[in-house]
């Protein structure tokens, strides 16, 4: 099996599974006053430390949530904007868990601007500069695009925001970068960031929110856990696994994966005619590669590769069973044919050169076969 769908989810690492198991066995509520509760609380504290260390922030700035979707919603829908600030900015290439909350904010009376991208998928900074004004309350830009791997210039965006408007918050959906490429919110001037554990070999149902200040209204009222920002008994097994996965990712293999990604793309471009690379050739995540194979339907290629034990994705996993084209590729100005033929290959640190060679060989075969049918 060659699993190339790591942007959808990764295989939990051994350490994460063991940590979760330990937390299932030592099952107490971390809020309980007795000794067993203390043990559970220690697991949460230690995991929080590991999660914070992976992005160079303070433990106190990490809140555990159920995942990326919840973190994004918590910030966007819960932002405490001063009265006169009713303007929000995001981009045209965000994940649905960012895009949809902004739609809701728009319905409730906020002005929302969506910044476009160039053909590499990098957001248009001039457009952002123009849209920022004194009423801007929140800007949300993803770090690594989940479909193409293009990296947004978070530092430049952060500076622009500070330069143009006082007191606007900056949120970054860092689900595809956290633990994979350097993301240091403190240094970048980011106020809020969203992380997900299962994208870094943790388990599903757990994620985190980085929040520099607590200027958000919690969506759930309850027992006041996690300083009231996220009430509810902590998901201790998920948290423990997240902590273990974060430790596991302190030393990752990004430079080797970058080399293999380069090889993957080079082999495709040299051996398969009529392909188009989707993304930036300068600022990209080594873990995601998106290529359009013209003249085919990507879903057929996906199943053809699956029959050879190679697992890939078309667009993003969350939208691939809806018959709508990828918004990211649309924003990048890709044609319908290019969008229909777009396949995402996403990697983790276990990728080998053999995997790359085998996958490209299979691609050559299957693309040729499908093109014969779809001529």
């Amino acid at each position: 099996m060659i699993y190339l769908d790591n942007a959808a989810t990764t295989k939990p690492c051994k350490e994460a599974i063991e940590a979760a198991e330990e937390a299932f066995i030592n099952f107490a509520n971390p809020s309980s006053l007795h000794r067993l509760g203390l043990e559970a609380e220690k697991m949460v504290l230690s995991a929080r430390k590991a999660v914070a260390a992976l992005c160079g922030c303070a433990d106190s700035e990490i809140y555990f949530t159920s995942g990326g979707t919840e973190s994004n919603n918590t910030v966007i829908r819960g932002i405490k904007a001063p009265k006169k600030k009713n303007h929000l900015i995001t981009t045209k290439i965000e994940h649905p868990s960012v895009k949809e909350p902004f739609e809701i904010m728009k319905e409730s009376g906020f002005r929302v601007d969506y910044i476009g991208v160039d053909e590499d998928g990098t957001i248009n900074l001039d457009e952002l500069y123009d849209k920022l004004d004194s009423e801007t309350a929140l800007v949300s830009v993803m770090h690594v695009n989940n479909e193409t791997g293009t990296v947004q210039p978070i530092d430049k965006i952060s500076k622009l925001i500070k330069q143009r408007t006082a007191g606007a918050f900056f949120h970054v959906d860092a689900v595809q970068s956290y633990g994979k490429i350097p993301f240091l919110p403190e240094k970048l001037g980011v106020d809020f960031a969203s992380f997900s554990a299962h994208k870094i070999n943790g388990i599903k149902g757990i994620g985190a929110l980085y929040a520099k200040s607590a200027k958000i209204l919690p969506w759930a009222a309850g027992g006041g856990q996690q300083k009231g920002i996220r009430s509810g008994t902590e998901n201790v097994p998920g948290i423990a696994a997240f902590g273990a996965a974060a430790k596991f990712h302190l030393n990752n293999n990004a430079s080797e994966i970058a080399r293999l990604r380069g090889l993957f793309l080079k082999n495709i471009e040299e051996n398969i005619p009529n392909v188009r690379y989707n993304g930036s050739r300068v600022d990209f995540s080594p873990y995601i590669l998106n290529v359009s194979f013209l003249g085919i339907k990507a879903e057929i290629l996906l199943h053809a590769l699956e029959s050879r034990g190679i697992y890939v994705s078309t667009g993003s996993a969350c939208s691939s069973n809806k018959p709508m084209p990828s918004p990211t590729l649309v924003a990048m100005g890709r044609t319908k044919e290019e969008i229909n033929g777009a396949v995402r290959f996403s990697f983790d640190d276990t990728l080998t050169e053999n995997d790359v060679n085998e996958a490209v060989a299979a691609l050559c075969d299957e693309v040729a076969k499908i093109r014969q049918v779809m001529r």
Partner: protein
Amino acid sequence: MKEIILVKYGEIILKGGNRPVFERALMKNIKNALQNIADIKMDIAQATIYIETEPDRMDAVCDRLEKVFGIVSVTRACVCEKDIESIKSAAISYLSGVMEKGTSFKVEAKRSDKKFPLDSIKIAQEVGGAIDDNIEGLEVDVHNPDVLVRVEVRDAAAYVYSTLNKRAGRCGMPTGTGGKATLLLSGGIDSPVSGYMIAKRGVEINAVNFFSYPYTSDRAKEKVIELARILSEYTSKINLFIVPFTDIQLKIRDKCPFEHMTLIMRRFMMRIAEIVAKKTSSAALITGESVGQVASQTLAALNVTNYVCSMPVLRPVIGMDKNEIVNIAREIGTFETSILPYEDCCTVFTPKHPTTNPKLDVIEKSERVLDVDELIKEAVAGIEKIEIYPE
């Protein structure tokens, strides 16, 4: 107070000497349908099937019986001794509580045990009077009552029930009494409805599905399995035959005119379905075709696809509009599954401008470049059989 379920069946009663065959089939089907639902005791007398079960399983049993073909109505009734005082007191205690204030009612009685001292009219009068005297706030209305209370004095006992406790059955004929047929089951809306309609006439159903991996996916296959499972709730077990069809499609795409693709594909499907039908002792094929719905369903196209098989091809939705078919699909519970979007990619084999008025000799000529027998042999050899049971 003891309750019992009375199952009435319709058309079977009209059968002459064969009637016991049909009754036995219905009882067997009921027994099968209920085997995972409840422990039951079942009896048959005077064109009624009597089912006894634990009080807390009564609802579940009635729900399940609603899906058994051959049943006209399912009624919960109170059982009592065959004397008028017992009947009266049973009627009062059974009906007080269920009949709300202001409800109008009428009592009808039937006396199949002619030795019972009162005749039907007298029984109705006595019981009606007792209810009126003892349950407050009811009105008698012999012309247009809200609730009809029935008393049946039969050989074994007397039964009291009201129309409030009576549910309509599916009607039709007991599964298995009408022979066997093979359904061409796609993932769409029409074919499951067609299968249901023929199954309702007592016909046992097999299903054949043509699988075009990687042009359709495992999810498309799961969808077909789920559709067969929904149908199996009405028919009990269904054997589903999954035919690997990609190679045939690729060969047709490669060698035949693209505008004939759909018709030649359909001809292969009919041939393979007929082979499966013969192997499984089916006497007919069933399809979901409806005149004019798509290019391959014009009369000329039907002639071309029908020509390759000798068995009768049953097309129960042939004269129905799409919305009529959809209504049945919703009613039988297949619609939501049928509209799941997992077979999009098969459209690469669908020409944009298919032939709508094909000539048989032209299609036969196009097809002649293929080794039809060999292709079919390979596909049949690769058939996967899945036995599907209701949940």
